[in-house]
């Protein structure tokens, strides 16, 4: 009956339990919000693979063999899989060889456990980041929870991760003034961003001092003369880029039009007489009708074609860029074999670093270019150019030549 429905809807939220300030157990939160909870737990489901993404945890190193050589010298060269639902955030982190082949810092826990904010409060920011991952993983069990994104009192969206707050405040953003629409992207930007571990304390840091485009990020890293690893074959000081979804999205037409992550990854769905946000956060290709059709009056097939054609172009450029990078690595390795040292190869190594950083910015970004199609292609074009220049520079090495004139 309509009256009943109305009362039910308006008497919402039905606070059946009080949620404590530090409560992270989704089950308890779920008692008050059963619809959202139902979606949330579905992130455990494997809905299968899409052309480039989806929840099937395939091995990225097998699918794109070039990655093994490009990441030579970094843990990603040992184990790198396609990501899946939030349910697995803590599970997959504990299982990956990236935490066993090398000793990782507690900083890893920041984005993989709902316990993180509490542990940070108790241990202090530096101590938490510095602590060995193995010493914290025992407690970091809840991969994702309502508390990551919501204020238990008001259910409003909130920022719970220090690294993002620090980076935004350094950029002069007053998070208290955030609009609702901004928060619909910023809660995601707590984790779906490029990061590095700064200094002895391994403090989780976002490289945004100069801006969030790959060009600005490069300036940030070069100023610190920072490197994530030394490339095993070329000896170049490399940067490993991870999931810069927020940064790439920010350069695209959707972001400019105010379309937030939640609009496409948590669309509204109908639950009886009300609509709620679908908390089964996943690939929009798994439910295009809700995610895209409200704004685009196109058929499911048309929308799918739009995405795939953008991704196919990006994927073709990714493969092209990998060929150029491999050629550069071969050329530098050949020069070293012929006796070249770091001082002979300075230019080639600088170019290898710059080229691979750009390729990784698109390769590790998880939309295969969809979040900003033209920018993705532009960045890959630069990557290819710089990689070929690295190959040319290494080719110029001439064993006979008198060192003095270098």
């Amino acid at each position, binding site marked *: 009956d309509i009256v009943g429905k109305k009362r039910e809807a308006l008497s919402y939220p039905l606070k059946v339990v009080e949620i404590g300030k530090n409560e992270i157990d989704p089950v308890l939160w779920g008692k008050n919000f059963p619809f959202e909870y139902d979606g949330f737990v579905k992130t455990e489901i494997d809905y299968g693979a899409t052309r480039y993404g989806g929840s099937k945890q395939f091995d990225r190193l097998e699918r794109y063999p070039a990655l093994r050589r490009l990441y030579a010298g970094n843990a990603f060269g040992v184990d790198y899989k396609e990501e899946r639902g939030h349910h697995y955030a803590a599970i997959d982190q504990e299982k990956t060889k990236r935490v066993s082949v090398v000793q990782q810092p507690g900083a890893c826990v920041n984005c993989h456990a709902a316990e993180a904010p509490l542990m940070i409060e108790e241990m202090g920011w530096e101590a938490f980041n510095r602590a060995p991952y193995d010493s914290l993983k025992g407690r970091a069990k809840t991969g994702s929870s309502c508390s990551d994104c919501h204020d238990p009192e008001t259910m*409003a969206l909130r920022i719970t991760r220090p690294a993002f707050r620090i980076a935004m405040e350094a950029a002069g953003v007053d998070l208290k003034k955030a609009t609702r629409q901004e928060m619909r992207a910023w809660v995601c930007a707590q984790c779906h961003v490029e990061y590095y571990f700064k200094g002895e304390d391994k403090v989780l840091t976002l490289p945004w001092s100069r801006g969030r485009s790959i060009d600005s990020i490069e300036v940030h890293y070069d100023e610190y003369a920072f490197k994530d690893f030394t490339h095993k074959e070329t000896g170049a000081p490399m940067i490993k880029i991870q999931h810069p979804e927020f940064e790439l999205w920010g350069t695209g037409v959707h972001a400019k039009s105010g379309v937030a992550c939640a609009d496409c990854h948590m669309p509204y769905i109908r639950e009886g007489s009300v609509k709620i946000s679908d908390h089964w956060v996943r690939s929009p290709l798994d439910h295009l009708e809700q995610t895209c059709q409200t704004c685009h009056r196109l058929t499911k097939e048309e929308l799918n074609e739009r995405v795939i054609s953008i991704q196919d172009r990006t994927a073709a450029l990714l493969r092209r860029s990998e060929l150029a990078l491999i050629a550069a690595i071969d050329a530098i390795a050949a020069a070293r074999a012929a006796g070249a040292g770091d001082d002979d190869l300075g230019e080639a190594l600088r170019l290898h670093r710059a080229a691979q950083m750009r390729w990784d910015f698109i390769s590790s970004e998880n939309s295969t270019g969809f979040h900003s199609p033209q920018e993705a292609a532009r960045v890959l074009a630069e990557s290819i150019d710089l990689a070929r220049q690295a190959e040319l520079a290494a080719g110029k090495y001439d064993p006979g030549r008198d060192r003095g004139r270098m």
Partner: protein
Amino acid sequence: MTTRNRSCILAAMLGVACGLAVFTFLYARGPSYLFDDPRTCTNCHVMRAEFDSWNRSSHKGGATCNACHTPHNPAGKYAVKALNGWNHSVAFTTGRFPDPITIKSLNRTVAADNCHRCHEIMVSRMLASYSRKEVDCARCHGSVGHPERN
């Protein structure tokens, strides 16, 4: 010419303009702003496009022009109708209005408020932690009344 003369002429011109506008208001059945039959809006051919698109919209069966474009508290209703009726008559007469015609913030707010009026239940949970001002229905549903324009 002295400022005084100039202002006289201005006043005179203004008078003529008003006269014309009033004529338009009546001739173009300005009072149509006061009724709810969508066809009355098309007394002005410049409303044709919106009428046609509404005619194809999901709301043809659900809402008339005024259901979305006029406030539904009695006072506001006639105030806005009169204001729009007058503004649009003047605009129509002088021909000084943007092309394409684009909704102004007052009328956009009016439309948004009307979404809530009819869909209060449907959106109740969206608004649990936020005020109405913090959600813009037209951002996702801007075309419910007019399918053509994103």
